[in-house]
Every structure is written in structure tokens, then in C-alpha cells.
């Protein structure tokens, strides 16, 4: 196993390698987004093989991961794709998955075949999770499929190997897995894996639903609920399915997005799983290798009316910088997206109304999502990729939404102010947040059914300052996933975030922790609480840099 330790505890990576197209002529006063995908030559389009017959999984296609597979300091992109139905095979190159190498000049090179990631044998793919499960310094990939799930080991030479069989990651027959997240639930320094599963499904068991000769995608309740699965990393590339012993096996849901965070501040990562038409699950880590499903206790199982909606993507971040990660999930048009405020690590308070999320969200069917400080003002905003389940009317194609966080209290819709490329209406699905040009402003990558993905570069033109922190664990997992960061600015303002690649739906984001600093250039201190329990504090940190922090020895 290769080891790639940073030579020093702290080093600074380069940034600002290119500027976004259109930056010279900004469309708006604040940061806005420009799609640079057309500048690159790649084949990938999200293809769910819709040909008239409506197979249930077709609505969920187009997972995306942002990760640096070749450790060149530039974040690359990976996309999952569908398959021919009912054969459930990637019979044609149009169904292949796709790895795009970031050239650093605003273009991307399709290196999928060279990397061995076409996925010809994977069937219909959904979510993807990036994480260095073997701590060798190279980010690996886990892909969720209808059919067998797949673990790809990054060989460190630009290629990947399918190590699923050797890893011991298996699942019950016909289980449809849609999303996954890497996290170290027992703080043993090795990344474990949680997989959210939707139902049992094969093309042969697919149901046909319709009225008056018009076919619909069936209501989820027509399919059985299933357990989500937890795999414990044993080391040496081996995993053990601990679903039942860890307390996941008895909770049956229709899993969608996964959010990982230490909700109660006990130093152990907890798991939120958004379920479609079934109550949401919040698995609180009992610190002994087991979890307790505590959605009722925490008040996140249902909405404020006791209803289970079509929860889709999820993210858990501290949107008001009070030191406790909050929770967000989106759902379908006519329902209310759920924003929950963490009440001191004890329970969650439903704040969709007072934050204005309820009114802002009612017109949209959301899929992937996440907290993203797009304007670097220090307040995490809310992004959602949108589009109806089905193409049933004029408003089925929908634009994405961006709700700007106003002082950590409420949100306002700025979707129409961030550029025409952002406002593209479609059947958007996966999304990843990533700083593709290392300019300190988060960019967006979004998939949309039947279309090429959009690679939305942030114009980064409001002059605000920032810090990106790349954590490297030593006793902790090498990615540092789970590390909690507290930044104090020169003025005394405190900002919080934590390391995770899991957000939204079917997607995996830049693992580097982003802080917007507003107009402040001075950072008084940066405190990192590692999963190992080690607390590391850096003083007088310079702003506007990518800071790599290697875990201290103790």
C-alpha cells in the first residue's frame, strides 16, 4: 500500500489556475455561474434509456463525484450512467460511466477507458461515493447499482481496479442501492461505508402503472422497503457487513440521500438517511459499534404535520455557525423541503417556515442538494438540483434553486441572479460541490436526464476571502472524514464545518473543507478535532489559500 504523507504538517497548494468563462463580463453583481462543459470533448450524457416504457429506476440516474483521482491538486469528475432496459446492461457506450480529468485550463479530458471505469459490467448505476478506504493516499470509488455494487480501488497510476469481490462487500439479491457515504463510525482510522437502498427490484419485477392508457412512474409504496447497509472496514481491503449487528437491519426504508455528521457532538459520526415516502432515519452512534435510530427523538422522522414525504437528497452542515450541524433534505413539488436546526446537540427543530424555505421550495421537485457558501460570506447557502419525477407537464423541467443564507436566520431566493446557465430548466438529478479551479469559490457540477452535465464555474468576483482546508489524517482516516473544524476570524467571528464527501443525492463532493470569510483576511485560529480525538489548533492562518493540514501526532 502506498503512503503519501505530507512532508510538513501544513503546506499551501497552488490555486487560481484559470478563471471561469464569462468572468470578464459578469452577468450579475454577485457571484454567478457559467457552464464550461461545452468547452470539453466528452461523450457522457445522462442516459436512463427512456424509450416509452417507464421502468422504476429511470428517475434516478446521473450520480456525480468530485475528487482528485490523480493527486495533481485539481479536482476531477466522475459520472454514473444508466443501462439498456430491460437487459440492464451497458450495451452501448452511451451508457458508460465517465471519468473526466481536470486539465487545469478549464477543460476536461475523458479518461474513463484508460482508468478502467467504463463500467460495462455494472448494469444501471446510481450513486457514487469517493473516499480513500485503504489510506493509501488515492481516492477510491464506490458505485451503487441495480445489480451488484462496485468498489473500485485507485491504483495510483491513473487506473482503477474492481475489488468488490475481494472486499467482501455484498448485498442481498435484487437490492437496488442508490447512494453511499464513506465515514469512520468507530474512529479506528479506517473508512467504513453506509449504503442507502431503495427497494428490491429487477426489470422482471418492475410494475406498470398508468391511468387511461398513460403510463406513470409507479408510486414508491408499490415497492417494498428495505434496510440500509453498513459495512465495517476491517483493513487490508476487507469489509464486513454489520448491518444487523449495528442496528440498521431492522429499520426498513426507501433510501435516498445520506448525510454524515456528528449531530450530538460526542466525537462519533451519526448517519441521516432521507427516505422516499417513508419516515427519515437518524442513526445516532452509540459509540460501541451500534447505532440507535432516533428520528422520532430528534424530530426529523416526519415533517411538522407528522407526514413522511418524498425525501430526496440530504446534507448536514452548520448553517448558522452555532457549533452544531443542522440538517436539510428536499422533496417533491407541493411538499415542503425540510430544514432542521440542531438544538444544542439534543434534538432538531423544524425551521422550514421561519427560514422561508417552505415558501421558497414549494414549486420545485428537488433531488440532490447541499449547503454551499457560494458567495464566501461565511453563511452556507442552500443549493438544490430540481426537476420533476416524470415528464408530465409544462413545469416538469425545472431550474435549480439557490437560496442565499441571510445571517444564519433565513434564506432568500437568488436563483435568477446567478446566471443564465444556472437557470437551465431540466430534469436535474445529481450534483457535486467542488472548487475546480482552486480559486476558493465553490463551483457546481450538475447532471440532468438526457443531457450532458453542466460544469458551473463560480465567477468568484465579489472580493470575499476564503480558506480551503485539505485534511490528511494519520491516526484518523487519511481523508480526515469526520474531522470537525472551527475557524475564528480576526474579528472573532466563528465558523464551523466538517469533513465529508457525502451530500445531496447520488453524489460525492470535494472533500476539502471550505470557509467563506467575507471581507476578513485574518484568521485568528483554526481548530480541528480529528476523529481520533486529537485536537489541533493552528494560529494566525493566512486567508485565500488551500491549506493542507496533516493530523498531529497527538
Amino acid at each position, binding site marked *: 500500500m502506498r503512503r503519501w504523507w505530507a512532508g510538513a504538517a501544513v503546506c499551501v497548494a497552488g490555486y487560481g489556475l484559470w478563471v471561469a468563462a464569462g468572468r470578464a463580463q459578469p452577468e450579475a453583481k454577485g457571484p454567478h455561474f457559467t457552464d464550461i462543459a461545452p468547452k470539453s470533448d466528452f461523450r457522457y450524457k445522462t442516459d436512463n434509456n427512456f424509450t416509452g416504457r417507464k421502468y422504476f429506476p429511470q428517475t434516478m440516474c446521473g450520480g456525480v463525484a468530485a475528487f482528485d483521482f490523480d493527486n495533481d491538486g485539481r479536482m476531477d469528475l466522475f459520472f454514473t450512467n444508466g443501462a439498456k432496459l430491460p437487459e440492464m446492461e451497458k450495451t452501448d457506450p452511451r451508457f458508460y460511466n465517465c471519468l473526466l480529468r481536470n486539465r487545469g485550463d478549464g477543460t476536461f479530458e475523458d479518461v474513463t477507458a484508460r482508468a478502467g471505469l467504463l463500467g460495462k459490467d455494472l448494469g444501471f448505476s446510481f450513486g457514487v461515493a469517493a473516499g480513500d478506504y485503504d489510506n493509501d493516499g488515492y481516492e477510491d470509488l464506490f458505485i451503487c447499482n441495480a445489480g451488484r455494487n462496485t468498489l473500485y480501488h485507485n491504483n495510483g497510476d491513473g487506473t482503477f481496479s474492481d475489488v468488490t469481490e475481494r472486499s467482501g462487500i455484498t448485498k442481498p439479491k435484487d437490492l437496488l442501492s442508490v447512494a453511499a457515504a464513506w465515514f469512520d463510525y468507530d474512529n479506528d482510522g479506517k473508512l467504513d461505508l453506509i449504503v442507502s437502498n431503495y427497494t428490491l427490484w429487477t426489470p422482471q419485477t418492475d410494475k*406498470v*402503472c*398508468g*391511468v387511461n392508457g398513460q403510463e*406513470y*412512474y*409507479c*408510486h*414508491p*409504496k*408499490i415497492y417494498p*422497503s428495505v434496510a440500509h447497509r453498513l459495512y465495517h472496514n476491517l483493513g487490508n481491503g476487507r469489509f464486513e457487513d454489520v448491518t444487523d449487528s449495528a442496528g440498521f437491519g431492522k429499520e426498513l426504508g426507501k433510501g435516498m440521500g445520506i448525510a454524515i455528521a456528528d449531530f450530538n457532538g460526542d466525537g462519533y459520526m451519526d448517519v441521516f438517511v432521507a427516505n422516499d*415516502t*417513508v*419516515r427519515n432515519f437518524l442513526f445516532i452512534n452509540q459509540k460501541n459499534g451500534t447505532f440507535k435510530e432516533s428520528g*422520532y*427523538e430528534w*424530530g426529523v*422522522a*416526519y415533517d*411538522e*404535520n*407528522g*407526514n*413522511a414525504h*418524498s425525501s430526496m437528497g440530504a446534507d448536514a452542515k452548520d448553517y448558522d455557525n452555532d457549533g452544531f450541524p443542522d440538517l436539510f433534505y428536499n422533496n*417533491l*413539488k*407541493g*411538499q*415542503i423541503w425540510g430544514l432542521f436546526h440542531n438544538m444544542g446537540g439534543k*434534538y432538531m427543530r*423544524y*425551521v*422550514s*417556515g*421561519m427560514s422561508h424555505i*417552505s*415558501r421558497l421550495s*414549494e*414549486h*420545485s421537485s428537488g433531488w440532490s442538494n447541499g449547503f454551499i457558501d457560494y458567495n464566501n460570506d461565511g453563511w452556507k447557502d442552500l443549493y438544490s438540483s430540481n426537476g420533476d*419525477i*416524470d415528464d*408530465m*407537464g409544462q413545469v416538469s423541467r425545472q431550474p435549480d434553486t439557490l437560496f442565499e443564507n441571510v445571517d444564519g436566520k433565513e434564506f432568500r431566493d437568488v436563483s435568477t441572479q446567478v446566471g443564465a446557465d444556472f437557470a437551465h430548466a431540466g430534469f436535474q438529478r445529481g450534483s457535486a460541490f467542488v472548487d475546480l479551479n482552486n480559486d476558493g469559490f465553490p463551483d457546481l457540477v450538475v447532471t440532468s436526464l438526457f443531457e450532458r452535465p453542466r460544469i458551473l464555474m463560480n465567477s468568484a468576483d465579489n472580493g470575499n476571502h476564503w480558506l480551503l482546508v485539505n485534511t490528511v489524517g494519520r491516526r484518523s482516516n487519511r481523508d480526515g472524514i469526520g474531522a470537525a473544524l472551527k475557524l475564528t476570524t480576526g474579528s472573532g467571528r466563528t465558523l464551523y464545518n466538517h469533513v465529508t464527501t457525502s451530500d445531496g443525492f447520488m453524489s460525492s463532493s470535494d472533500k476539502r473543507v471550505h470557509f467563506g470569510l467575507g471581507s476578513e483576511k485574518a484568521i485568528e485560529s483554526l481548530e480541528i478535532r480529528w476523529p481520533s480525538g486529537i485536537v489541533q489548533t493552528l494560529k494566525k492562518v493566512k486567508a485565500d489559500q488551500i491549506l493542507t493540514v496533516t493530523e498531529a501526532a497527538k
Partner: protein
Amino acid sequence: MSTAMRSARWNIVAGTGRAVARLGKLKLAPRGTCFSLSKRAQLARDRRAMNTPLWPRLSKSFFVLALVASALFAQQPDELLQHAISLHQAGDLDGAIKAYRDYLAVEPDSLQARSNLGAALARAGRYDEAIAEYNLGLQKSPDNPALLMNLGLAYYKTGRHAEAAARFERAVALSPQFQEQVTLLLAACYNTLGRYKEAVALLAPLEKDKAGDAGFDYLYGTALIGDGQEGGAAVINRILSHGDSAEVHLLRGTLELTAHDSDTARADLEKAVALNPRLPGAHTRLGELLLTLGESERARAAFTQELALDPDEFTSNLNMGVLAKQDQGYAEARRYLERALRTRPNDPGVRYQIANVDLATGDLETARQSLEVLTKESPDFAEAHATLATVYYRLNRSADGDRERAISQKLMDQRDAVPVGSRPR
């Protein structure tokens, strides 16, 4: 419209004497009265009445019942009372009210004067005062069916349908001959209260005789659709034979809303509102549809319009309460919900929402108490059990929380086991 109630005779006991009054026919009229001593028979009504809401037609007719009590108490030779009755009959309501009150100051036990005063107050639109007078009269004579009828009508007029229904039921129990007069009113109350099954039970026996009567068909169709019975569509077709009307579009839109056929439902409900913006329930149904389409601002406007017509309309109050709660405007939510509760006392859904407001505002004890009662009374109310579980957990009563959670989960699993059918989300 040809809805005519057959005449009935009934007795009332008033004051120290006993009078037998003969009621005329209870008629459904577009603008008219309901209870009348007039011998005039209402044999037929213009088809134009199709577009006139049934509820106002019914409710506007209540006041006559007590007005005519002047004739019933004619053997009281008191000049002051006669003067009051004269003024009342001449339409000088203010003068009559004053005269009745003057008389009652001297003869406070006069049921005749009390009843007539109630009638005059009601006719003047002073329903709360009328209700107070009727209730005073009923303290003296609790089983007086005429007073109960008039009180029921006053409650009906003020949108207090549960109280109205209770008085009508009591009046009929005391004097079964009232049954025929009160059937449509009572069915209308039941529809408003969501007691569709009881409305169907009342109306079904009349279908043979009244089929084709648009007012009846509308009431019956509403009850059938509300109760989820397939006969609703047949009744709609029957009404359609009378031509296009707001009522037809409302009923059809309601059916389509139930069937998740949003586009068609929207067209019908918007047509209903356009044809008759005062048609009770039309704005409400449209608002409900708009909510399912994620158009809460327009839904709010629709509910607000409904409440402008009838401040006590249950569904609009409930939805406005839920919307306000959604916005975390808890005081406003509570106002709407309590108003809804006034229309349908003990409605489990409204009580659940109020308990949620209590929970959201941190009043855990009140929420707990309400939810404990609610789950006891409605043991299959899964959401209430779920919320009660959360309340118990917040109160650190983990064992109770676990129990309620298990109950809730079991109920929801049972619900999920019911096939959803071939429908979209």
C-alpha cells in the same frame, strides 16, 4: 327548483299556556324563507335556482319560525306584547326588539316574547343575541322543539354547524314530524361537518322522490363524493342534465381532485368559481387543489375568499391554520385552527394540528395532554402517536416514547400495506 317540504303540524308549549301552531311548508327558495306560516304552497321553482347556493337558501329561511310564534301566543292579551308583534310584522325590527325587551322586563318568563325577540334579532342579523335569547327560552322549556329548531337555524346561519345539527337532531327526536322539514338542513350540516355517511343515510331514502331536484342532487352528490361512494358520478350526470352549473363543476372537480387528476380538476374548479364566486366550498376545493400543486400563495387567496363568504368554513380554516403553522406563524395558526374546531368540535385532525402548534412553541405539557386524549379517542391516528412519541422523548420519558413509536410504526406499516393502486405520486 321544485324542492318543497310537505307541511307538518307541531305543538309548542309556551309560558303558562299551550298553543298549537300549524306550520306552513318548509321550502327551499333562491332568496326566500324556510319556515313560514303562510298557506302558500311552493310548488315549483325556476331552474335558475340551480346556480344559487343551497346553503344560503337554507339558512336564510330560519327566522320565520319564531316570528310566527306571535300567532301562537296570541291569547296573551298584553298590549305591549301586541305592540311588539305588530312592529315585528311590520318589519320594524329595532322597534320590535325594544318592545319585546320592554315586555320581558315585566314578564321575564314569557317564552313567546323570548322566542319572538330571538326571531327579530336573527332577522336583524344579530345572531349571537338571538342565540342567547333562544337559549334563555330553552332554560325555561328545554324540550321545546320549535325553539330548538330556531336555535338550530341560528347556529346554522352563524356557521356553527355542529351545534345546529345537535339542535335539529333533538328537535326531530322530540317531534318526529319535523323530520321532513329538517332533513335537508341536517344533511347540509353533516356535509359541512364531514359526516358524509350520515348525510347519505338521511338523503338516500329520498333519492327516488327527489332525483332531478337540483338542490337535492347537489347535497346528495356532495355527500356521496365526500363519503367516497361511486354514486357521486351518477348524481353529477343527473345534475348535468339540467345544464351547465357551478355546482356541477364543483362536484366534478372534487371527484377529480380525489382521483389526483389535477389538470382536469383545476379546470372544473376554476370554472365553478367563475360561474358562481359565492358558491360555498368552491374556493376551498380550488385552494386544496392548488396546495397539491405547490401553489400555496394562490391557495391562500382561495381559502381567504372562502372565509370572506363564510368565516367558519372548516376546511379553509384548517388549511389556513396549517399554512400559517408551516410559516411558523403560530399565533395566527392557532386562531384559524380554533375557528375550525368551532365548526367541527373534537375534529381529530384539527386537534392534532393544535397539539403540533403546542409542541412547536415548546408547550410540551399541553401537547402531551392533548395528544394523549387524542390517541385514546382515535387509537388509529398514526401521526398523533408519532408526535406523541416525540413529545415523550423530549420529556425524557423514553419508555413511553418507545411505546408510542411502536404503535405509530405498526399503524403506518398497516397503512403502507394497503395497495396504493396505479397512480402517480
